[in-house]
């Protein structure tokens, strides 16, 4: 079974500063996908960034980037130039193809990020 661990239940960062959220996972599989989802108070699950395990290059999306260390099974999210709108719950997730067109997405317990003005 796959597990995802987010060791920081809560974090805070000053506006315009940089913050890194940690995530580790455990799997014996070699092909999988990793995600960071953001859940603001509106409850909507918003995809922040996606990484394919077979790609060595770290994914980036504007102010968001990841540090993917496959051997260490680590997948941290860096948010640069933090904005008030980044305040949300952040979930790290591991996705595996489970057959018959279906994927299994396993989530960590989340990190609550507060951006302070």
């Amino acid at each position, binding site marked *: 079974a796959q597990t995802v661990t987010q060791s920081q239940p809560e974090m805070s960062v000053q506006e315009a500063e940089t913050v890194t959220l940690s995530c580790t996972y455990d799997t014996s599989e070699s092909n999988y996908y990793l995600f960071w989802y953001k859940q603001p108070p509106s*409850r909507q699950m918003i995809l922040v960034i*996606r990484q394919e395990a077979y790609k060595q290059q770290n994914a980036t999306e504007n102010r968001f980037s990841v540090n993917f260390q496959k051997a260490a099974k680590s997948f941290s999210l860096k948010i640069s130039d933090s904005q008030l709108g980044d305040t949300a719950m952040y979930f790290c997730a591991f996705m595996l193809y489970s057959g*018959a067109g279906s994927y299994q997405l396993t989530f960590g317990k989340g990190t609550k990020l507060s951006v302070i003005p």
Partner: protein
Amino acid sequence: DTAVSQTPKYLVTQMGNDKSIKCEQNLGHDTMYWYKQDSKKFLKIMFSYNNKELIINETVPNRFSPKSPDKAHLNLHINSLELGDSAVYFCASSSQTGFEKLFFGSGTQLSVL
């Protein structure tokens, strides 16, 4: 144009009642899911359906019964509601081809009194 839509957004009901949550996706995806987010914000998969066929069925009480009339719809029916069923339920969909990711609905907050 909402990609994955669920109704209702909020559902308040008494213990012992039966209720349904509806989900529809207009993305042409073959696979749909139900996830449960508990009071501690932990998200866990409940079911997945591919083209109306049940694929993933996690350890969920028999009181929960998903129904997929066609591949664009996956409804969740819950019998004999209990206090512990209070949670946010998310519907999602995915495609096997192209960009592999899950698209989530906006969630249904179920409160059982």
